């Protein structure tokens, strides 16, 4: 039980750290657009060109 004397102040430090991260992420605008990144990852132009796919499937 004595470990609580260490763990509880530690949890306070953790909460402080979380609040700081939250502040940083809000200030850098990460919460301004919550829809965009979700779409952006779907729309990334990393899909292979269609003709390459057909060549591959013919082999």
């Amino acid at each position, binding site marked *: 039980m004595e470990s609580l004397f260490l763990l509880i102040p530690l949890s306070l430090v953790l909460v402080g750290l979380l609040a700081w991260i939250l502040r940083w992420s*809000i200030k850098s605008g990460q919460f301004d657009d919550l829809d965009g990144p979700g779409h952006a990852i779907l729309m990334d132009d990393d899909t292979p060109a*269609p003709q390459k796919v057909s060549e591959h499937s013919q082999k």
Partner: protein
Amino acid sequence: MSNQMNEQINEQINEQMSKKNALVCYHCSIQILPGELIEAELGGEARPFCCPGCMAIAQTIHGEGLEVFYARRSQSGDKPAAYLASDEIPEKLKPYDDPSLRGRFTRPSGGEGDLETTLRLEKIRCAACVWLCEQHLRRNAGVKDVQINYVTQKVMVRFSPDKTSLARLLFEIERIGYEAWPFEPSQSLDRAKKERRHLLLRLGVAMLGMMQVMMYAWPTYVGADITPEFEILLGWTSWLLTVPVMVYSAGPIFQAAWRSVQSFKQTHMLGMDVPIALALALAFIAGTINLVAGVGHTYFDSITMFVAFILAARYVELLARQDAQGGAEALAKQLPATCERALNYPALQEIEVVPVVNCNPGEVLRVSPGEVVPADGVLIENVSALDESLLTGESKPVEKKIGDRVYAGTHNILNPLFMRIEAVGQSTRIAGIASLLDQALLAKPVMVSLAEKWTAYFVAFLLFGAFASSAIWLYFDPSRAWTVLVSVLVASCPCALSLAVPTAMAAAQGAVTKLGLLIVRGHVMEGLVKATDLVLDKTGTLTMGQPELQEVINLRGGYRREDALALAAALEAGQRHPLALSLMRAATAENLSLPTLSEPVINQLGKGLSSGEYRLGSAIWLEVEQSAQLGQYGQVHLADAQGLVASFVFLDTPRAGLEQFLKVVKSRKIAVHLVSGDDRATVVWWAQHVGIQHYQGGCTPEDKYDYIARLQKENRFVWAIGDGVNDAPLLARADISIAVGAGAPLAAAGADAILTASSLEPLAKTLLLADKTQAIIKENLWWALAYNLLAIPAAMMGLVNPWVAGIGMSLSSLAVTLNAWRLRKA
């Protein structure tokens, strides 16, 4: 029998044939007319296009390897302008590189002389569109950085002015099939962003505090047997976490409460924040005293939870409110940024394209058909017709003679006209309406919401109960008076009470958004229940505001209806008059192929069109008799050398779902008023046609505003629906107002909610849902009250353990939330 069968088979074959023949444009997906087909090879396949513009766009997109756009988009684009085929920046965009406009729309960024600008994208239909714009801009030389916001559809571009320019950027966006206009970042926008971020951070801190304090309170909830030194440790850590929640997160609540108390002498009203601040302060002080004394409950969990929930509700409300455009931004969108100025008029017909801000009264402007008049002025050359429906509510185009006034914001639809400027910018008629809108928003009666009233009563009752019982205890046993005061204050579960309204509102708003109604200001659902009068605008609200071909009459023998229609449509091709567009729509809907006219079409100004022996136009010009029919939008007649061939009758169509909507409204004993800027006869006809008793025609925006003000003076609770610029002050003044989404941006700026669906049916459903929401809010409040009436006396008599109170509190909150959840299904 066999004949019939043959006919059927023939029909089927015909259908298949037409499907095969119907080539669809690769970019804009419209059917390609046989003579207009262009083919181009893209990505190893021949693709059909309807026009050089579409081909240019598709080539640009493919050329940059962005063709995945065509697979991912959910809706196809509009037909673009023809000038996109060339790589030249069009004249109308060039003025953006003029120092006066560039200075307004760009700001220096970074040390290398880079400029930064914010553009607002138009014609965006899906996420794929936004992605395409971003990728295309990034591939341009000189563009350093692109940041795009999917929600607000704004792009921030940082570019080097040596390699590219503002006009070039705007043109590049047009080249892939969209439009953009530079956006003047105002201080209010900056402030809105700051406000949003601050509230979010306050909410985050309160949430973190709530979670952590509840964790420390867990041993008390479950009644764990812990030693006193740990209890003190947990208590003080909770206190440490509650302080930032009280000071930082709840700070604005205390400030608002203090302001409300200070201004009590003038207003004789205490704001909602006063009881909240009082409860928070009392609970915190009591908790701290208990902590120091080492006896009793500390209440820190209740405090943090209460603050977190209140801030969450406020954050949701703030987001919705900020989504609505401000009046100034809407006004900017309504007027063009550039215009065509005639130099040395009338000696020379030389035209230069200049920013509207650089124009002065006295100068002469040319306005082409299809363009928006940029300033107020007087028509000096070429009679024309102007669509003033957004400004005045007048449904038909207004014929303008030399010397007539023309107003900024109206559409020129007939001939290229010349006008002399009398007023630009802030002194125009439309800017006047915008400022009336701002006044109206200030004059709007403040609705005291049901929840606020209940909470005020509840808190008053609670404070009275707490102080009364502690006074009684002071008389019998002074040592317990303080404990009782605090236990009464806190055993009353503020959570269920604070959750009762926001949860129901959030669930109901989610449901109506799915129906097609976007709620901007929070009180709409509550206001709908209270409404006693509904004020409707006619053009664009009650009706669609555009004529539809109703029937073809006076058809001469030997002509089929389709032939006459096709002939008329061929004559009207390329015209922008609403009746012309309507004829074209009717011809397209019936899949008619238009005949080629042997002679060019001549536009007989103010009368009609002619091509060889064919003439299409007004009854007076063609010298035919027109059977007058009230409520009609108009008639157009087609004649050749032998006389009348056919007459086309047009009718403004009522908006879909109108009948059902009015039925629901009337069943609730809401008086319906029709107030329109259109002429009296048409308004009377429509009012009788759809069954509305109160009506007034020929109204100016000021008349409409007064109409509402008069109703409000009679203590009526007014609900207004409108769409035009002329409705903006009315919408802003009404107790609750809904703007039709397809209407003017300025109308949406004054409204409490925006109808995004084209039918009125969602409103009928919303009304029913509003009833249900109100019922559920009442249930929730009754539940919270009943729980408190049981819990408080029990707590007073010391019958409730802390953990029983904790479970009771959680169950109570859960019941309220689940009850509200039922609204989502509607």
